[in-house]
């Protein structure tokens, strides 16, 4: 156990725990964009920076990947943090001027003057790669970061509609700036240049997901694909259990 202070409050944590997790557990809000508990170690948006004072020396660290090694004092809102975060937010705003989320962060925390940079017109993406990570983990790895440097972007191979995509929208759901566009009218879903048919629950008619998505889930679970929504599936399971134990 290590004892640290965050904004003056004494907190305890395990050695090696990330600072962001410790702070959040103790009720300190640190803004983040690219952090997601399920996909770790992106550490590219830099919004979560905080000031750490160790042995009388102060430094700015990225809290989402900073492991606590020894007692220290942490400040999540010091002058230095405010100043540095304003620069980070300004750069993110120039990168993705269309994003409402970044706009809100800039309003809440203040952004430095970015007039010397040329904003990228119509851009929302901050290239954090969470979508590619989510696709690899939950979907099929249909998208990835392609090219590099200023040309880097998120795309499918050869910029073509991907054969691998199942239309699960994990990418759009996890995106912190809502940069991934899709259409969903309840009957069909369009994402990454492909159109998917939406399957409805055979019991109650609620939308379940795309046919490909259901097939993938069933394949992973080693079961037959079933067109049931979560509620009706639960109902079916309880019916089976009730029957097994002779309640009904």
């Amino acid at each position, binding site marked *: 156990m290590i004892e640290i202070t965050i904004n003056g409050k004494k907190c305890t944590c395990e050695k090696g725990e990330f600072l962001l997790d410790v702070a959040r557990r103790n009720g300190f809000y640190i803004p983040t964009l690219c952090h997601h508990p399920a996909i770790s170690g992106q550490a590219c948006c830099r919004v979560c920076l905080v000031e750490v004072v160790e042995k009388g020396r102060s430094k700015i660290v990225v809290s989402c990947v900073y492991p606590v090694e020894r007692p220290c004092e942490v400040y999540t809102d010091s002058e230095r943090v405010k100043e540095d975060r304003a620069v980070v937010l300004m750069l993110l705003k120039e990168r993705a001027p269309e994003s409402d989320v970044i706009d809100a962060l800039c309003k809440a925390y203040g952004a430095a003057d970015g007039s010397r940079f040329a904003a990228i017109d119509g851009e929302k993406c901050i290239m954090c790669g969470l979508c590619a990570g989510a696709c690899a983990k939950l979907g099929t790895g249909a998208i990835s970061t*392609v090219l590099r440097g200023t040309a880097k972007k998120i795309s499918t191979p050869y910029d073509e509609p991907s054969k691998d995509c199942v239309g699960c929208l994990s990418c759009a759901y996890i995106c912190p700036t809502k940069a991934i566009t899709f259409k969903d009218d309840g009957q069909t879903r369009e994402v990454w240049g492909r159109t998917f048919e939406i399957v409805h629950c055979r019991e109650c008619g609620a939308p379940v997901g795309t046919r490909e998505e259901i097939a993938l889930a069933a394949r992973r679970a080693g079961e037959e694909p079933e067109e049931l929504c979560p509620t009706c599936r639960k109902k079916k399971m309880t019916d089976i259990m009730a029957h097994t134990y002779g309640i009904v």
Partner: protein
Amino acid sequence: MEVSEKRIEEIIHSYQPDRRYALAIMQDMQREFQYVPREGMEALAEELQCPVSSLYAMATFYKALSLVPKGKHIIKCCDGTACHIRGASTLIDGIRRELKIGPGETTQDGMFSLETVNCLGSCALAPVLVVDDVYYGKVTLEKLKEIIQGVKEGGAE
């Protein structure tokens, strides 16, 4: 060499089916075909049981790998510090005029590709041009025309 399914299979099977060899296999394809063909990448993804997107990300990241066929003759124009100062950009403009291609492009007839490199270690010869592994030093625009003409005639033989 012409892209063939047989040759692709041979390259893939010369390595263990492990994802850490993906880059080496694609480099071998690049060496063999002058580019990484789409069939090759798809076959490799199948063999390694990984998504095509992860190989595509790798192939677009590394400059050494190309996704489009390269020309028969590859012109490497050094644009390192010494060559740049000695007028490498004039040479690149000259090539653009002569062959209508910029860095990273290939002529319509598939004869020439132009690449810029950052230093060839022959700064005393600046500006340096390498055509099919033959070095040309202290190249001027006049010399450039002769070099291209020479390669064209040599290639026609």
